[in-house]
């Protein structure tokens, strides 16, 4: 009985509900600037979780998630400004377009593994960046697209926060289901040993491509949400620096925990803002913090916490039973 209770106390579902409840209260407690900061964290958390499906679960190190993220952001922006598409269609089309581009990019990338895979993803992201940067007639080039017509309801920070929260919560829940499905298990077996997986009759490349496409889909949503939140899009969204941000978010939080990128996103955005407020050399301090985390918390913050938590849990169960 006690064991059952402690188990339930530590169960993931309960944590998710608690976090969600806390997030719903945020606009009532914090100022607008904090709410908008948390909004950024939410979107980055989704992008991180989408990337981590490949990185942590599939063992595919992608250096180009920002490319697909930008495809999502620009899809929404261009559909709204150029074609006057209805708002929800512009938002919902973003992941579909990102998934289509992701299929094409992924088809090439999964043909190689490890460092060559990483290089291909980087190359494709740079191609996407170049297209956005140079194609003035369509994307407005380096001027970006500004004053994107979003519905008036979303002008208030509180409303846009709930809008983002709803999307992010649903998407992260879906991703959570995916990693716990037979597909997720198979993806992990590919990470552990691609050759052995091939010999249990799994077409490895096809599964890697599927992971790539699913990841692109959710990166597309994250991009679209950021477009709606910021009201503007810039070629920088596709830049490799943005990809590195996403990778750092995953590594910082821990790639072998589902919650890793969520924690990573919160911590990364928080420290980058807090430090940036106090010094122009914030990148320097961020670098030091990352070096420390990588050296002393090798499985990221979530991995470190999970280890401590399970020790604590064992002790609790030990004294109870």
């Amino acid at each position, binding site marked *: 009985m006690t064991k059952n209770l402690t188990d339930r106390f530590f169960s993931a579902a309960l944590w998710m509900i608690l976090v969600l409840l806390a997030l719903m209260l945020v606009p009532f407690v914090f100022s607008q600037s904090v709410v908008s900061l948390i909004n950024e964290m939410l979107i980055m958390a989704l992008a991180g979780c989408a990337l981590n499906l490949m990185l942590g679960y599939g063992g595919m190190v992608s250096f180009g998630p920002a490319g697909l993220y930008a495809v999502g952001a620009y899809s929404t922006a261009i559909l709204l400004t150029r074609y006057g598409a209805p708002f929800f269609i512009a938002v919902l089309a973003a992941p579909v377009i990102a998934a289509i581009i992701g299929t094409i990019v992924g088809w090439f990338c999964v043909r190689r593994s490890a460092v060559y895979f990483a290089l291909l993803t980087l190359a494709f992201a740079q191609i996407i960046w170049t297209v956005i940067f140079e194609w003035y007639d369509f994307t407005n080039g380096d001027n970006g697209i500004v004053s994107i017509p979003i519905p008036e309801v979303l002008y208030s920070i509180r409303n846009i926060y709930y809008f983002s929260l709803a999307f992010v919560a649903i998407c992260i829940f879906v991703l959570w289901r995916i990693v716990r499905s*037979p597909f997720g298990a*198979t993806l992990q077996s590919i990470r552990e040993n691609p*050759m052995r997986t091939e*010999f*249990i009759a799994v077409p490895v490349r096809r599964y890697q491509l599927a992971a790539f496409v699913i990841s692109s889909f959710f990166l597309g949503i994250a991009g679209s949400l950021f477009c709606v939140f910021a009201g503007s899009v810039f070629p920088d969204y596709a830049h490799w620096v943005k990809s590195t941000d996403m990778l750092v978010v995953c590594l910082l939080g821990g790639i072998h925990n589902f919650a890793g990128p969520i924690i990573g996103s919160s911590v990364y955005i928080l420290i980058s803002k807090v430090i940036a407020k106090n010094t122009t050399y914030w990148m320097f301090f961020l670098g030091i913090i990352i070096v420390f985390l990588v050296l002393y918390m090798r499985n990221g913050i979530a991995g470190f916490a999970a280890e401590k938590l399970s020790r604590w849990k064992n002790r609790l169960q030990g004294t109870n039973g």
Partner: protein
Amino acid sequence: MFFETKNLTKKFGGLTATSDVNLQIKEGELVSIIGPNGAGKTTLFNLITGHIKPDGGKVFFKDKDITGFPPYVISRMGIGRSFQRLNIFPRLTTFENVQVAVFSAQKKSHQLFTSARKMVRQETENILESVGLLDKKDIQGGLLAHGDQKRLELGIALAVNPLLLLLDEPTQGMSPQETLETTALISKLVKERGLTLIFVEHDMSVVFGISDNIYVMHQGRIVFSGKPEEVKKNEEVQRIYLGEENK
């Protein structure tokens, strides 16, 4: 013929790893391929299972030409294998190691939104029990003892429901006692499931007791084949093995 290779040949640069290998195996047979290290046994397995493509020759399974098919297609057709080097999923639990293979066998690997945790539990546990690992199901595969990892690999291979099973030195690195137990376990499982088995081994004593037929490989060629007693008496086989031991 259930399984057959015809003049299977593979060259690596100037080295001929296998040369004109002809195997003929009937359904339900337990066949061993023996030979000293470097005789080309593992290359032969890699050729059969599609891991590498032959330079010449054909592979037939149930009278179908499967030469050059990718590994996942060959596994799906019913040829399973284990590896000489340990080849499991080290950071998945013992249970999950077998479970992913069962998913594949039941064509469930692609399911995206169902929860894997409680699926195919019974099937997975049956296989773990048959290889004697049920009590270790929650341990990470990579943390098991060497002998247990070899048995886990056998479990993964069995979980795909193969008709023909290729085992590459399944007792490699085991103590003599473990070797005896594992060999007995394998021949029991093979009989229970009505499998056809090709067993690769460099130590002939391991396979004499359980094989219906033995192929002796040396420098990429099959130099002799026959019943275990015939192999024991054959002078060339003696010479290959004694020659190796004198080195």
